[in-house]
């Protein structure tokens, strides 16, 4: 009888031990990187703050901390030890190898958020922590082998001393996204210069408008209002010399009651149709999961068929803070180099730059459509529903106009 108890107890202890070992198990050999966030190779605009006796770095909306790692194929998890002082100070982005995820830090307590990811082949990747809601605080990050969950392990359960891993220079990373700002915010009406291939201020009625629309007061004089459900404005771009690089900028004012900048729906702003199947196609749309996203793809269409790994890249930015009753300056830009393709998407002079390995040909566009899903796709309307004004298309990227 007594032996029975002993055996049961041993069995129970063994099970508990196994469970404990499985839960968040990380050996020292599995730790690739373990670092205070302020010691990462690149940080910008972070400020120290103490919560519950732990020093962390508070992120403003434009704050960023980055590290590059060289990893072998396998499953990994990024662990972020973080703290949110309040519910409106908890949002931030994590970007791993150019793929961005929005998360929220635990409110009023320290916690460890986990971001599992997989590398298919050996190579260099960039990892960034990017601010969104000012005040969100990060103490430290770690990258460990294996797939783990939030608080399993907690950061204090990651063994070993702080270590920096194999760091890569940012310029050597194949894929990365950065926060960028224009050196000079566009304020007045856009004017034509030697790089301008198209300009339209809508002060007089023009060709290219289809579906439901009306004319109304714009940011500068008259504007075109594309209405529910099928309003569109199309520009014939077949004669534009804008293959390798270019910039499209215009003003938008979605109908305020629609609250597009935080709406749960999916709304298309721009579609640049490639001249041939190998060429770069650009699509700008807003979706609550992806926020405002500029997608670079081939002419298969970003809408259908479903995502195929490796064929699409993008730059994206949050639009949650934008005012509903104002005009906003939208800028989309691209530059296709031999090794890398750069994308820029900006609103009111602030936005994101993303670069990735070049895989699309610089053949130019046959048409550029504003305000709805492309007219040649058999997919439902995803209307922008609102005003557009002062379009300018140039054959140079925005790179030279960025703040240093």
């Amino acid at each position, binding site marked *: 009888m007594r032996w029975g108890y002993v055996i049961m107890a041993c069995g129970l202890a063994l099970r508990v031990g196994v469970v404990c070992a499985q839960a968040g198990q990380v050996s020292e050999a599995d730790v690739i990187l373990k670092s205070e966030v302020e010691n990462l190779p690149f940080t910008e605009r972070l400020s120290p703050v103490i919560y519950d006796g732990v020093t962390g770095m508070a992120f403003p909306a434009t704050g960023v901390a980055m590290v590059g790692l060289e990893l072998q194929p396998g499953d990994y998890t990024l662990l972020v030890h973080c703290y949110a002082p309040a519910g409106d100070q908890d949002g931030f982005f994590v970007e791993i190898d150019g793929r961005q995820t929005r998360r929220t830090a635990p409110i009023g307590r320290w916690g460890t958020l986990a971001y599992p990811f997989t590398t298919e082949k050996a190579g260099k990747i960039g990892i960034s922590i990017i601010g969104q809601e000012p005040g969100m605080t990060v103490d430290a990050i770690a990258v460990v082998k294996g797939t783990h969950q939030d608080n399993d392990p907690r950061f204090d359960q990651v063994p070993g001393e702080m270590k920096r891993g194999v760091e890569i220079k940012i310029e050597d990373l194949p894929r990365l996204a950065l926060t960028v700002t224009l050196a000079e915010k566009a304020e007045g009406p856009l004017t034509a210069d030697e790089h301008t291939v198209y300009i339209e201020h809508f002060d007089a009625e023009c060709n290219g408008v289809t579906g439901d629309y009306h004319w109304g007061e714009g940011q500068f004089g008259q504007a075109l209002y594309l209405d529910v*459900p099928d309003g569109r404005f199309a520009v014939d771009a077949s004669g534009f010399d804008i293959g390798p690089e270019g910039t499209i900028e215009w003003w938008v004012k979605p109908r305020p*009651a629609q*609250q597009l900048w935080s*709406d749960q*729906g999916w709304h298309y702003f721009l579609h640049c149709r490639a001249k041939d199947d190998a060429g770069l196609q650009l699509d700008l749309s807003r979706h609550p*999961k992806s926020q405002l996203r500029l997608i670079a793809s081939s002419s298969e269409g970003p*809408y259908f068929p479903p995502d195929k790994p490796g064929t699409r890249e993008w730059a994206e930015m949050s639009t949650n803070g934008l005012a509903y009753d104002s005009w906003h300056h939208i800028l989309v830009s691209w530059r296709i180099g031999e090794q890398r393709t750069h994308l820029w998407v900006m609103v009111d002079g602030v936005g994101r730059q993303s670069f990735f390995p070049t895989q699309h040909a610089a053949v130019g566009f046959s048409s550029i459509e504003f305000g709805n899903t492309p007219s040649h796709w058999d997919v*439902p309307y995803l209307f922008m529903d609102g005003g557009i004004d002062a379009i300018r298309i140039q054959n140079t990227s925005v790179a030279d106009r960025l703040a240093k």
Partner: protein
Amino acid sequence: MLKRVSIATLVCTLICFAQCAVALDQDLVTRAEAALEKCTQYLVDEVAYNGGYVGTYLEDLSDQWGEGHCLRHQSWLQPPGSPSTGQEFLRAWRATGKQLYLDAAVTNARSLVWGQLECGGWVYVVDYTREGEERNYYRRNAGSNDQKLKSGANRGTYDDDTSQASLRMLMATDEALDGQDQQIREAVMAGLEWVLKSQYRHGGFPQWYPLSTTGYSRHSTYNDGNMYYIMYLLMAAYEQYGDERYRQTLLKLGDFFINSQLPEPQPIWAQQYDEDMRPAWARMFEPASVTGGETSGVMTALIEMAVYTKDPKYLAPIPPALAWYQRSQLPNGRWARFYELKTNKPLYFTSDNRTTYRLTYDDSDMPDHYSFNASSYPQRVEDAHKAITEQGLEAYAAARAPKELTPAQLTARAESMEEAVRKALAEQTEKGVWVRTAAEGRIIDMALVQRQMRTLSDYLAAANGKQ
């Protein structure tokens, strides 16, 4: 002469009632009374927390749920949650006149007063702990000096009949108490003021009020019957309190029902509208479109408005909407939930993981958590509209009005319910409730409990000669 007739009438009535009473199974009446009492006593003594209830409980009360998991010290307001149980206490009281039931109802009403937000509305769950009290700014704490009690969320919702059901229960209790309970009366008035304030200029109501700065909670939403429940609430409020503002708000809502009908060739309704009364997106799988799903509900509401006001203007939108149904039937004989604006093409979604939705015309790969192919032809609406057209509004409304039953009819009603009552008695647990088996085990399903209580109350009301 008059006196003689009155006496003769009284005698006849008594004889008739006596005959009726003889026909009833008195033993069953006694057992039904005992069962209802036992159920109520158990609910009050063991199940309730601070007078409030949730939707389901494990039979041993070790765990509980509303729409999601709830804690023991929480109540859940959306039907069949706490106020729905309270309404059954009131029904039992009306049927029997016993104080036990009125006391149970008043206790439940007080739990709703406890959980009323400072704005006047309610949210889905009331948490009676201090921590829960800090999470919301309750009306009861409006005069407090403790800032923690005044800094919580203060936005009430119409979603899932939450605030409407709470107000209906408080109004019914207020009526039962002849308005003598000041706390309950004040809560009703605060709640109705919240309703008046929350109406948009176009007559619709947002899902939440005060308005959030962003998101689809600002939209006027037909989904889940939100605005029909407001309509019934306003009708009841005007009938009970006679405040002309309630009637005007109701009429404005009726105008919204009419004005939110989309133009030909799609003269039906969208699921939700923004502040410009244009179809809007809500959740990621609820596009700006017309809906075969909610149109049937709007037409039913229009008939209710026509019957209530005797104004035929509410009927005018119905024929073109029915014609749309007839020409929009799909090859499979059904109707899609969503149709694209202008093209009238059915809209569907595909979803890989419930977080990524793609809008499509293809119905071959729809997620299963939402009905994208839900609606059927609104035959009842067509029948009602036809009956009104043939009979006229006045006659139709008169025919629908509840009729006072004779004692013999009441007895017949009671007798017709005997089988259901015997079944309820047979299935009642030793503790006095009703349970069913679910994935979690044996559960006390409050919807089932309410249904059985209603059976017993309606039976006792008829047996006791009450309408």
